[in-house]
């Protein structure tokens, strides 16, 4: 093609296609030996790569890695269980939460955080009161010896015990127990009445 003649787009495209066809023919006919060698070498490489995996030392390594992974998973699960058991949400029992809710006027609600704080306070007070109640009740039950008539041998101590119990409860949780049980003054008055009755 001379410089003066314009090479058309179609001519260039056709030349490239011819070149591609020539190249395809050449590779098919001239490279068959290399093809066989290349494919076998690749298969050998595949086998040797796999042999590395089946090497006992590497298998030990894989076993060790698996064990470490299992140990890590167990640690996470156990940690989760322990955290769940000691979670602040579970530390406060449901009754305290119910009490906290009932303290609100109807129609109002408190945020979860407020509910937690209130429930924790109530739970503390209830726990203390229960501990006091148990402490006061122990001597009562310890002296629970009755005579043949079914009455207590030392019937006068019952009032003392009740008085002691009520005092403890009143001292520990005055807001909750003073109304039901009465103040120490009421008890003194009750004791006087009891003395009069005994007399």
């Amino acid at each position, binding site marked *: 093609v001379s410089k003066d003649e314009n090479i058309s787009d179609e001519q260039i495209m056709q030349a490239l296609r011819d*070149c591609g066809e020539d190249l395809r023919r050449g590779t098919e006919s001239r490279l068959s030996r290399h093809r066989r060698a290349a494919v076998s070498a690749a298969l050998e490489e595949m086998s040797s790569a*796999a042999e590395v995996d089946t090497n006992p030392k590497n298998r030990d390594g894989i076993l060790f890695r698996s064990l470490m992974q299992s140990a890590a998973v167990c640690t996470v699960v156990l940690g989760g269980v322990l955290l769940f058991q000691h979670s602040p949400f579970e530390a406060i029992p449901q009754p305290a939460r119910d009490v906290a809710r009932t303290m609100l006027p109807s129609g109002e609600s408190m945020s979860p955080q407020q509910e937690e704080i209130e429930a924790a306070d109530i739970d503390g007070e209830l726990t203390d009161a229960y501990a006091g109640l148990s402490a006061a009740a122990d001597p009562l039950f310890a002296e629970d010896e009755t005579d043949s008539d079914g009455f207590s041998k030392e019937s006068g101590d019952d009032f003392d015990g009740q008085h002691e119990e009520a005092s403890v409860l009143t001292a520990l949780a005055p807001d909750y127990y003073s109304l039901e049980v009465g103040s120490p003054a009421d008890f003194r008055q009750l004791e006087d009445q009891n003395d009069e009755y005994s007399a």
Partner: protein
Amino acid sequence: VFGDAQTVSEELTGLKPFGNMTDAELIAEIRQGRSASAFRPGASASAYSERSRQALGELLNRHYAWLARLCLMEIREQTAALDCLQEIMLEIAKSISRFDGRSALRTWMFVIAKRVSARYRSKERQLQDRFPLGKEDDVSMNDAGMRTEGDDAEEQLLLSERNRRLLGLSRMLPEKQRYAVFFHYFEDLSVEETAERIGCSAGTVKVHLFRARESLRRFFDDEAEKVQREGRS
């Protein structure tokens, strides 16, 4: 009486011949062979079953030709081109079990081929820089990176003089134009298929092809001018 030999073999063994399998089926076969025997207590020679090795052999044979042509277009010297091709096939064999099918298999292979051949091209360029006085056509290298002569891929493949020149010119195009020309003209793929293989839009492929043709036209014009000048003198 017995029908097609492959069909009979399939009926007898219950196994589909590799020649009838798609690429995806061959890959599944390779994976299946690996999972069945890998890490088996007492596994000695290979963790791949014989069938999975055969499947890989079929896959590599199937894709050998176009990978070879790609290497021969990318790298001028045939020994280096075939070394590059060998390395590409090793890479494919090593990582085929990790192929996850997110792209087409040929696209995945092309990415590997592009990466490996870029390394060889860079080596070839360094060699040309080391021997700047030699004519470009005479510069070549062997495995040891030494300069040799008369080992051009075009010569070995018995290409016609015009096609040898055209292949040499195509090799000098920018990367994207080169790949567009290779897949569309040399491999006879459609513009859409070329776009999928290269990883760009069909419009972009058309632009690359147009620019490549313009560059080649300039080469031809210069060549024609040179021939005219020599004829006059």
